[in-house]
């Protein structure tokens, strides 16, 4: 008997019918990924853990409805955690408002130590450059390149048009490329 695994969409369908095991599998497939995505957006490990958990709870408590949803489960779960993360960033910014000028460089925004220490030099520099990207560009680069979502899924997750995603992806990649040129030895 062929050893096949149910697709996300099959599991989601079962989950909508009330299947606990199906949801459990979806959790296993995506929790770590959405945490990583949220972490790259929020730069806050605890917040990312909380947001990833909250995203799954919300997915369970308010299952996506509508026959014409037209998006994959992958794009759905990333959408939820992206929205949660963006809201968290705004909430955090409001808390800091007046107390701290800007979010960049604050302790909670420091890139994860394990990421800095475990990567090679170029990887470290690239990770740092990614951290410095504007949030929207960082979101799109992360979703498309690091998380491997399709271009369409990135549009669904971010709610942006194809051209907007295309433009921001290009801008983000170009910023990263230019930021790495000195380390690559280029002097242009």
């Amino acid at each position, binding site marked *: 008997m062929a050893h096949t695994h149910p697709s996300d969409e099959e599991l989601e369908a079962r989950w909508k019918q009330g299947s606990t095991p199906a949801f459990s599998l979806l959790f296993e497939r995506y929790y770590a990924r959405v945490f990583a995505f949220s972490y790259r957006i929020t730069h806050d490990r605890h917040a990312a853990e909380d947001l990833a958990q909250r995203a799954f709870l919300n997915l369970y*408590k308010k299952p996506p409805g509508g026959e014409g949803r037209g998006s994959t489960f992958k794009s759905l779960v990333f959408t939820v955690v992206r929205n949660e993360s963006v809201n968290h960033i705004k909430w955090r910014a409001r808390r800091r408002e007046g107390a701290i000028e800007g979010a960049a460089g604050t302790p909670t925004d420091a890139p994860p130590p394990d990421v800095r220490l475990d990567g090679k030099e170029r990887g470290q520099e690239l990770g740092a450059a990614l951290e410095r990207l504007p949030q929207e560009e960082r979101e799109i680069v992360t979703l498309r390149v690091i998380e491997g979502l399709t271009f369409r899924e990135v549009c669904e997750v971010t709610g942006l048009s194809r051209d907007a995603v295309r433009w921001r992806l290009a801008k983000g990649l170009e910023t990263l490329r230019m930021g790495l040129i000195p380390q690559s030895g280029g002097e242009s």
Partner: protein
Amino acid sequence: MSDCPRSELLVDLLEGFLEGDELRAAEDHLAECEACSEARDAYRQLWGDLEALPTPTPRPEARQAAYAAVLAAMAADAPAEVPDPAEAPAEGAPRRAGGRVVPWPLLAAAACLLLALPLSQFAFDGRPADSSARLDRADVPAAPPADPAPSAKQLDQEPEEEPAPLQRDPRRRAAAESPPAPPPDAAAEAEPPLDERTQNFSGEADAEDDLGAGGAGLSAGEAPEEEVADADGAETKEALRQRELRSAPEGQSSGAPSLAKTEPTAWQVTRAGDPARYTYAWSEAGRLEKVPARATPNRGSQGRRGDAGAPAPKADAADALRDEGSARREVARVAEPAKLELTPAQPGAGRVALEADGLSPAEAEDLAAILRFELGQPQDSAWGDRVRGLLSLLVGYEVREQDPAALEREAQRALSPELFMDEQLERKAAPDAPVQAR
């Protein structure tokens, strides 16, 4: 350089978006322009480097907590357990408006099972002896089904067993039974049969789930604040969460414990319709003691079981009562003062207490209320010890965080899972809502 394609076109090229004349024009240009050709190559290398970046991973305990929270939500939605006529609801037992069970104790119960932490695995410092072992598939009990592939039939067949985490004294049960698999870190390729890992916890979830009514959480499709009409919902929720954490000792609604501070570090616990029954008190040795309300808390450093006056029942009687329901178990526990104790500064003490009894749902609520209170107190030198001790009891492992801000954040996270907050919101919305049997 004005003829050079913009970076968007290079991305289009990498993405395969260009066709026909556009593609030919771009390729022709790249063949002639060294700068653009190098840029394209750099993009390709950059793409690969980004893919190879180290991936941040959540802490195992956070992963397990999230998994447990989801399971608790499912358990809360599952059809009610078949009521045992001999087990009448009692005062102080957890109740749920809308037919749901107290989320926080459930969360703790589910967490205990799903942490896969039979207490024998705890090292003496209160932490799992080998956290990785808990995620090892070898620890999962043998699965009944022979077919490793989760077929559609298997997916249809939810386990019929009574959800174990919903039983009283979950830690005791967790220690007695083989734990279900926590969410493994392994990729989907290693997925076992579905019912293998859910045989101990799952229940049928309601297909028509109405949890979260009242706007407590973002729905799947909701956009960030500025993109939704009712964007203030999340903000209100966050504000309410903070208020809850600061004002919990007052105005508890029916069924929730309320606290009366009788001494600087002692609280008399009262539940609606029930006279004050016991007091939680911190001893000078940093031990949290639970004593009958009429007895004087043992303020000394050696408060042990039986010190506080009330005679302790026979052990076999206590064991018998323990299995007969939380209400009677509470009676038994009140008769055994100082049974609930934690000495975070002394390795193993908290573990022993937990292993001996575990937290009942009512006790979990009590401790959560005390913890909320503590979070609103000045952060003096003993504040960290008190919060660490309470939090350790609630989460089931020893919390060692020293930084006050981080500790407070940990505690707030533990106290504010979505389900717990939903419950508080529901109580606020309908404080007099009748308890409904399900």
